[in-house]
């Protein structure tokens, strides 16, 4: 557990010192938001209905970029071998990276979500606790698989293509659950979002455990 905490702090410190990844991911998030909204060109009244889909597609793409960057950094000076030779369980490395990714996703969302409220005329104040719950569950699910497969994709040829190719089909159920839950939360409250949240929780539990168990096989050698 201490190993995981150390890795979490290390990743966050690297990010805090450069702020490169957060800056690029944040700008990309805003751009995606603008591009989707403009591409749909919604009527002002219809705009709020667009919000859940726009939010989650933007998060998936910014998340892909951010997670991949995190692992490319590990690769640059062969830091991964250093991490592996440290007396830390691979599962602890996974947990640390997972938490770091969840935190970074959350920070990006803290900026992008208010902008969605602004651009798409959604009133966020009343539904904020429910929205944060759904976003956190979605982040954990996304990071569980993204952390596992970023380690895979950075080690294959054509790695820029490989991560989205591997990740997107696996993430479809998460996306369905998250969009359904977000729509329900924006429309009324947590109660209506029960089915979507159930899918999110199932996804989180299954893949955090799977990643925890399988990460060792991915980074070994």
């Amino acid at each position, binding site marked *: 557990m201490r190993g995981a905490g150390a890795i979490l702090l290390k990743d966050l410190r690297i990010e805090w010192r450069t702020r490169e990844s957060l800056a690029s991911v944040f700008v990309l998030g805003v751009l995606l938001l603008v591009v989707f909204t403009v591409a749909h060109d919604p009527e002002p009244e219809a705009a709020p209905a667009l919000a859940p889909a726009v939010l989650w597609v933007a998060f998936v793409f910014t998340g892909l970029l951010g997670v991949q960057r995190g692992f490319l950094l590990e690769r640059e000076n062969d830091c991964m071998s250093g991490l592996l030779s440290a007396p830390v369980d691979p599962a602890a490395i996974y947990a640390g990276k997972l938490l770091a990714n969840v935190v970074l996703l959350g920070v990006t969302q803290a900026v992008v979500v208010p902008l969605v409220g602004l651009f798409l005329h959604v009133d966020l104040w009343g539904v904020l606790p429910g929205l944060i719950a759904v976003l956190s569950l979605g982040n954990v699910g996304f990071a569980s698989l993204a952390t596992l497969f970023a380690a895979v994709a950075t080690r*294959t040829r054509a790695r820029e293509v490989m991560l989205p190719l591997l990740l997107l089909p696996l993430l479809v159920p998460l996306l369905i659950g998250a969009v359904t839950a977000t729509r329900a939360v924006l429309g009324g409250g947590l109660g209506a979002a029960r089915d979507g949240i159930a899918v999110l929780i199932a996804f989180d539990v299954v893949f955090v455990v799977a990643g925890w168990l399988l990460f060792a096989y991915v980074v070994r050698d």
Partner: protein
Amino acid sequence: MLAALWLVFVAVPTEREMGIVQRIFYFHVASAWVAFLGFFLVAGASAVYLWSGSAGADRLAQAGGEIGVLFCTLVLVTGPLWARPIWGVWWTWDPRLTMTVILWAIYASYLMLRAFGGNDDAVRRYAAVLGIVGVLDIPIIIVSVRLLRGIHPAVITRNEGGSGLVDPWMRAGLGVSALALILFAAWLIALRVRTARLTDEVAALRRQVAEAA
């Protein structure tokens, strides 16, 4: 095996009732079963590979993935051929259709990973991890696509092909064609595993020759 296939081609025409397109159903459903078996084979063999590192399990997983994607493609081709005259559209975002196309994409990416990754132990382990994660995803996909039904108009609630099978001949046709396709797929997988083993042997021999020279 060929005899079983031949039997299907003769047996199936005897129980057509809903028009000629309905015959495709026997191959459609049987292919779907085979595709599922292929995907579960990938997961099982992948788990064995991670556990034991046996090259045979890895080849079996690869063959299962290829055959699974092949039959899943057949499902996705035969489905629209039937749907066009019966439902009036080639495609609709019915939960079951959505699930099939997601599964197809997952295992297509599995094959891509193997194709892009090259031939070394690390890639085999990655593929095994993906094979296991893919199967874990299946139940969640099944639950999550049900959420879609509330959003999309349910054009197809009469999709229950099974309920129309009143004639025992029809059930026999489905059973025989499923059995034939499963045997056919097993034969293909066996061939594929043997090809992969021979490829590995040739590569090993070539290395030996190169070292000797």
